[in-house]
């Protein structure tokens, strides 16, 4: 994997929201790479900037949010060694619109509201197809039915003419996935795709996503706050906190050998089915600071049990190499080599 070039490379991304009350630095220097055929998990609490990161990749951050720095690089379909800089594109222009849905597709958070209630799902999926493939209406309908079939929807010829509110939550999510893959994208960005549906359906949807990813050799950027789902889905994990990457590494390393105090604390606070001890579940002390007054230095230091006074509350740590493909932004590893990539 190391010698392979990444499909998507996010480098030092900064997204700020300019509000009347001040500037909120939602994403403040985030870097990670996504490779072909890989499921990359982005995990973090709500408000950590994972959804804003996702929106910046597609360049659909709503005002007053603005990308202030960094790059989002996407390798070209025909020349994988050459890269398109998505942050340099006009966000209303043709170029980025060809990327959206055609190269990078989104599976949004709320399947209930993601479709218009007064247009059939077929109409909305066909629209995505006709935007990216040079086909007429009948051909688009054919592709749409195929797409619905491939996400395991029964009676696709009939369901294509139904409205989203006529479908169950699981079917609706399948329809969303069908719409996302209809444009034949190389990368799927799934923003908490299973939060709104029940656990049984959730398992089916996750299996479906994995199957599709394997069949189509797609990459998936899987955004969630559910560590269990990440463990099941992802090969590589990025842990975010308050707009910054705390730690990133292969899924086994993150779950079995976490290095960053935040990741360690996060994993300690997961209830286990095996343990039957009567001890209280450990929690991370304190609460997430208000986005307007983010702490100076490492954003996690006020809640960190290992914080070094005069260091963590002053300086911002860079990424240190803490294992094979594993990096942590923490001064505990100051003596390790710095990640220059």
């Amino acid at each position, binding site marked *: 994997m190391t010698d392979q070039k990444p499909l998507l490379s996010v480098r030092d991304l900064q997204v700020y929201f300019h509000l009347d009350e001040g500037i909120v630095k939602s994403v403040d220097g985030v870097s990670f790479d996504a490779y072909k055929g890989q499921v990359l998990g982005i995990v973090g609490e709500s408000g950590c900037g994972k959804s804003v990161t996702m929106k910046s990749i597609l360049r659909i951050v709503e005002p007053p949010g603005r990308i202030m720095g960094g790059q989002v690089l996407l390798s070209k379909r025909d020349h994988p060694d050459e890269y398109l800089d998505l942050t340099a594109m006009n966000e209303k222009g043709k170029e980025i619109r060809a990327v959206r849905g055609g190269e990078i597709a989104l599976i*949004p958070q709320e399947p209930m509201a993601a479709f218009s209630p007064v247009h059939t799902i077929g109409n909305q999926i066909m*629209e995505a197809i006709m935007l990216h493939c040079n086909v007429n209406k009948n051909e688009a309908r054919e592709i749409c039915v195929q797409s619905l079939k491939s996400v395991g929807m029964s009676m696709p010829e009939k369901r294509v003419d139904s409205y989203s509110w006529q479908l169950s939550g699981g079917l609706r999510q399948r329809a969303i996935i069908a719409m996302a893959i209809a444009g034949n994208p190389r990368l799927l960005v799934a923003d908490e795709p299973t939060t709104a549906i029940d656990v049984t359906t959730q398992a089916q949807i996750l299996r479906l996503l994995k199957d599709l990813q394997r069949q189509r050799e797609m990459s998936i950027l899987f955004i969630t706050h559910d560590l269990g789902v990440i463990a099941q889905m992802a090969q590589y994990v990025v842990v975010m906190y308050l707009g910054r990457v705390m730690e990133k590494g292969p899924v086994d390393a993150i779950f079995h050998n976490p290095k960053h105090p935040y990741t360690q604390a996060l994993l300690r606070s997961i209830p286990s089915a095996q343990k039957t001890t009567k001890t209280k579940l450990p929690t991370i002390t304190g609460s997430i600071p208000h986005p307007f007054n983010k702490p100076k230095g490492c954003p996690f230091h006020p809640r960190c049990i290992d914080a070094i006074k005069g260091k963590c509350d002053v300086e911002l740590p860079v990424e240190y190499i803490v294992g094979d493909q594993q990096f942590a932004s923490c001064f505990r590893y100051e003596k390790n080599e710095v990640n220059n990539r």
Partner: protein
Amino acid sequence: MASYIAKRLLVIPLLLLVFSIVIFFLIQAPPGDFMTTYSAILAGSGSSMDNEQLNLMRIDYGLDKPMHIQYIRWMGKLLHGDMGLSLLYMLPNTKLIGDRIGLTVLLAFFSFILSWLIAIPAGIYSATHKNSIGDYFFTVINYIGVAIPNFFLALLLMWICYDLWGLNLVGLFSPKYEMAPWSWAKVGDLLSHIWLPSLILALGGSARLTRIMRANLLDELGKPYMITGRAKGMSEWALVMKYPVRLAINPLVSTIGNYIPQLFSGSLVVATVMNLQNIGPLLLQALSMQDMYLSGSILLVYCLLAIIGTILSDMLLVWVDPRIRME
């Protein structure tokens, strides 16, 4: 769907019956009757009638009977399609109303179309350019449109047109065509006159509609399907026009039912001021002269038009919104 429409149509006679009772007793509520007004006018013009004559005429017209008997006689004729005789014009009401109903509906229709043509683009612009100079401009225009009485606006515009360009915009026809039989030239003449009263009637309504459209659209623009649409690669313009605008218009359709009676009642004063040959001035005169059968018939026709308008708007809503259609 067919049974829904049939059900709605079947209710019409029942509604009209209820309305006719209310209308009849309301018109009779002022003291006196047509004869009182009539003798007052005669006295005003110097001639007079003695009480005996007046009472004879009362008996002749059936005005001496108790109110419910009068109502039943009126109703009995109505059921045969006869709206009675206008005491004022000495002409059948059916003819008086029939002569003017076409222009009344036409004027209402034009104002309605105009108000939507103004309101929807203005609402879309205001919502998509929220808090811009253009938005504020429309807001100011809207408040003026809501606040200003339309008859005053009519006077103002007539004066401006006359003063600046020497245009005489009174009436719906040029003097040349006023009495002429219908021809293409007369239709053209009508179209060249009808825009100003239509516009005046439309402005008040469009101001309200613009506000509703703006608020509805602002709600829709924040919906998650917008993110889905952008992520699909749609251009912003195509996206806004296809989904949120379409969804924002749905609640607007349901306001048509209330809007149509407003158009008729609003046209009464404007039509009187501008001397338009629609039902408005006729109703005003009938009411002030206590020509009860004429005013009753006109009000009943208004009610019928309002009911039809409501049914049309409900059917339109069923047609544009699948969520209602499939329930």
